[in-house]
């Protein structure tokens, strides 16, 4: 057997786990590990400018590939800087492993320099965490960490590694385990066959069924299967913010996104359905509105890998715990096996009603007095210029909702956003992680002038590693989403939602060695965007000035049913 130091064992374990890239930032407690990185080529390290960005990059990488994103940081401030990124991944069930250096074992608990109880600080926002006690445990711990992060309902795992156990002076036998079994961790592998059959019968007998698909379909690699099921049933389907792309937005049976800023047809179809098949979705409060008033006439079938997601906010009539992929496969089979002919008259009537809702055309961009460009137009143009084919990441705010509603997604893992935590500052590093994974794809970050400044320093990392992503800064000179709420609920008192003294983003982009393009008029937008995307090997920062007074619509009325919504500013005020 080979003899290696703890630090070398750690890096070799990552390589043997199949990790090709790791996002990180060095420091005292991680120096032995960084020295081990220097001695090898299997694992590429990307040096970020802030540890939070490292976690979002790993997260973006994980979301576009379905693989585990990996992060390496030092103890204390390095470790605490990852917290927002870990929480972001946790809320959206993203597989991630964060390795943090720790002070030497004998110093732990003594308030040593750069000591933070990382396992303690991260505890509520991780799927699991480890404090490695001895070098002999490193390989198995890494194996377990990746296994836990990736399987069941995925999530972030922290591995805290005291400096002394990575000491290059001490050598240990290295063998990377080929598999791991844990008696206390056994993810469900199959949904209950009886429940699946019962559910399928109910779906086939329903008069007004709808499928409500969530991020679990994307994460569970079940988009193709979902499409098959949707087409074989002929029923309408809606998607959550996290599920966008699991159905082609051009699909006739697709009603668009549901929820707080969902479409009129999606929310109305949910409210009036007699059967809801929820697939990998979790009845989040941004979907249901008041859960007490949620879809009163519907029987609810809920497929989820996590039993705790079922009947948490809305009671399921038929719960199915299992991997979405397997459950949908069996359901499609059951549709074929069961000799149930759906009620054609009822289905036609259902579609007729839905078409009437659709005709409202709730996403049509309504004319205003203002001559200024509209943020919706920017996203529509982006969709057109990129043929609806780019990987789009977003930050958080109005621009995020516009990017969700107006870009025409056609495949899973194409739309990347922080849905659960709503983390401003996510978009740019997530785009970088995506670009690392798919260097040949168009990767676009749709952001706002507020959000982009929360991780703007990563423009420097983009330069170092030549990551020619495109940044679409929808500049409304305000924390638009906050301002919208203040308009609606605080009598237009704009308390600290204005951004005074914005930087010159063009000069800023140039200072980092990139290209900046400013656009003020809609007439110039198409040409400018075409130019932007023609610069294949350049990071281009498009600073696009839009109407600062625009609101996101449709918007649910707080405390109402899922379908209680306002469709325009005129209606809202």
């Amino acid at each position, binding site marked *: 057997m080979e003899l290696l130091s703890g630090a070398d064992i750690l890096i070799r374990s990552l390589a043997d786990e199949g990790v090709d890239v790791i996002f990180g930032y060095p420091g005292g407690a991680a120096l032995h590990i960084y020295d081990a990185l220097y001695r090898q080529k299997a694992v590429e390290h990307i040096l970020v400018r802030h540890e939070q960005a490292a976690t979002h990059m790993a997260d973006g990488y994980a979301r576009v590939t379905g693989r585990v994103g990996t992060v390496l940081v030092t103890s204390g401030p390095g470790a605490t800087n990852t917290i927002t990124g870990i929480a972001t991944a946790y809320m959206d069930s993203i597989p991630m492993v964060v390795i943090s250096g720790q002070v030497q074992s004998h110093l732990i608990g003594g308030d040593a320099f750069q000591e933070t109880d990382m*396992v*303690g600080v991260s*505890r*509520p926002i991780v*799927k*699991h*965490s480890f*404090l490695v006690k001895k070098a002999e445990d490193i390989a198995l711990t890494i194996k377990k960490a990746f296994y*836990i992060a990736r399987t069941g309902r995925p999530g972030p795992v922290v591995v805290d590694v005291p400096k002394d156990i990575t000491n290059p002076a001490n050598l240990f036998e290295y063998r990377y385990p080929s598999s791991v079994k*844990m*008696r*206390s*961790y056994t993810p469900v592998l199959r949904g209950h066959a009886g429940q699946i059959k019962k559910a399928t019968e109910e779906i086939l007998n329903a008069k007004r069924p709808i499928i409500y698909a969530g991020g679990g379909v994307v994460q569970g690699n079940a988009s193709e299967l979902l499409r098959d099921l949707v087409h074989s049933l002929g029923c309408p389907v809606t998607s959550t913010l996290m599920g966008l792309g699991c159905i082609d937005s051009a699909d006739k049976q697709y009603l668009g996104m549901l929820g707080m800023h969902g479409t009129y047809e999606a929310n109305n179809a949910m409210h009036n359905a007699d059967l809801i098949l929820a697939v990998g979705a979790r009845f989040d409060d941004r979907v249901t509105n008041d859960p007490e008033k949620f879809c009163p006439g519907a029987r609810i079938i809920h497929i989820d890998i*996590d*039993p*705790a997601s079922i*009947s*948490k906010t809305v009671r399921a009539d038929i719960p199915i715990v299992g991997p979405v992929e397997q459950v949908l496969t069996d359901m499609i089979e059951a549709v074929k096996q069961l000799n149930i002919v759906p009620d054609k008259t009822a289905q036609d009537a259902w579609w007729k009603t839905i078409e009437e809702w659709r005709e409202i055309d709730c996403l049509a961009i309504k004319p205003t007095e203002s001559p200024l460009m509209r943020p919706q137009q920017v996203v529509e143009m982006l969709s057109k210029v990129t043929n609806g084919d780019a990987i789009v990441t977003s930050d958080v705010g109005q621009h995020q909702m516009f990017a969700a509603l107006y870009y025409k997604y056609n495949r899973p893992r194409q739309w990347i956003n922080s849905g659960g935590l709503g983390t401003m500052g996510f978009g740019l590093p997530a785009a970088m992680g995506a670009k690392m994974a798919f260097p040949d794809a168009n990767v676009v970050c749709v952001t706002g002038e507020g959000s982009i400044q929360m991780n703007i320093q990563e423009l420097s990392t983009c330069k170092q590693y030549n990551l020619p992503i495109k940044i679409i800064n929808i500049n409304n000179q305000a924390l638009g989403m906050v301002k919208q709420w203040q308009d609606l609920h605080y009598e237009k008192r704009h308390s600290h939602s204005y951004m005074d003294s914005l930087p010159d983003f063009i000069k800023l982009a140039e200072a980092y060695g990139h290209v900046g393009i400013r656009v003020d008029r809609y007439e110039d937008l198409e040409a400018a965007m075409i130019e932007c995307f023609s610069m294949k090997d350049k990071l281009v920062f498009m600073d696009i000035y839009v109407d600062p007074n625009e609101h996101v619509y449709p918007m649910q009325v707080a405390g109402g049913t899922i379908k209680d919504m306002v469709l325009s500013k005129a209606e809202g005020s």
Partner: protein
Amino acid sequence: MRRIISILMENEAGALSRIVGLFSQRGYNIDSLTVAPTDDESLSRLTLTTEGDEGTIEQITKQLNKLVEVVKLVDLTEGAHLERELMLIKLKAVGAQRAELKRTTDIFRGQIVDVTSTLYTIQLAGTSDKLDAFVEAVNGVPIVEVVRSGVSGLGRGDKVLSL
């Protein structure tokens, strides 16, 4: 409704804090908690009592089950079970009260385990209700100090919580 949840968990540093943390993080109450190693050195047994409606208890057990260090758990209150709690109570015992206290202790099948000229320390085991009843029964006698172990328990008959 009061529930007794008994958990078999990995005997590892940090496992307990994860369980306790889950309760505070998600806004559930822990009314009592006891934990100790089992005959199998690698496992600890934790028993806690909590209050909540059916939905809350369902969430609590599901969330607990998700913790990687939790091997198995059971809601003992779902079936016939045994529960025991230990109490040590130090009471002021002077004059006629001494005989009275001795009698009450006998009735409750407790033992006087320490004595001074003015104090009795009484040991009592049983359900939480029984311990409460004892405290009620000695009402009037000044209590100097009370310590209770929290509930532990197991299912009756064939029902076992093991690997």
